[in-house]
């Protein structure tokens, strides 16, 4: 059973990861035309799910996207990045709403 403080800790990790993910996407888009640039992506969802299942510590990882490169050695795909950015927005909203929910629970407990 996780208490509110523990849940907030988990959500804080999720929010940090979502912000890192957003930065990686912004960096890929900024380098859309940079010769030989290879896109990176930040993943944390599976690690978080694993940590929640077995009580371990979750971590976020930065990995190359590994898409095929164009003639200038750049592999940024604008449609892919736009899609990731949209998903990232929703994840951000989800995590922020959950944190708000946890604080509301704590607040109720304190004020009675």
């Amino acid at each position, binding site marked *: 059973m996780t208490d509110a403080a523990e849940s907030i800790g988990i959500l804080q990790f999720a929010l940090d990861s979502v912000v890192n993910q957003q930065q990686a*996407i*912004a960096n890929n*888009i*900024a*380098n859309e035309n940079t010769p030989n640039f290879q896109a990176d992506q930040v993943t944390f969802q599976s690690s978080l799910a694993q940590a929640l299942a077995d009580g371990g510590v979750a971590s976020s990882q930065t990995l190359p996207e590994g898409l095929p490169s164009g003639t200038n050695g750049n592999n940024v795909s604008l449609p892919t990045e736009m899609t990731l950015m949209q998903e990232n927005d929703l994840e*951000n909203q989800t995590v922020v709403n959950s944190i708000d929910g946890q*604080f509301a629970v704590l607040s109720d407990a304190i004020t009675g």
Partner: protein
Amino acid sequence: MWEAIDIAGSGASVDQTWIDTIGGNVANMQDGVTPGQPVYQAQYVDAGASVEPDGSGDGVKVDSIDVGPAQGQDEYDPNNPVANASGEVEYPVVDLGQEMTDLIQSQTSYQANSAVMSHATDAYQSILSIKA
């Protein structure tokens, strides 16, 4: 703080420089001179990724501005006041097709960076709205 906005800003700034050089190249492509005189040299942006010491990406920057050939192309135009004795005028080497293609690319990239800025602003706003 607000890294995503800074990163998108670096992208928009490189795009702006890119668009400026395209403007300069197209505006000067008809600058004929007497052969042998210095002729306009096209400018090309050489961009490179910025990386933080820890290896994470920190946007993009203009590494250098490369210039096109110093030797222009001669065209026969005897009525031009700057033509030489054999009626030749030297024009800068600018590929208009290439410039127009680059213009569309830089414009798309600028739009993408500005979309990132507004998305990032919304995301930061929602984080700022958290209150206990």
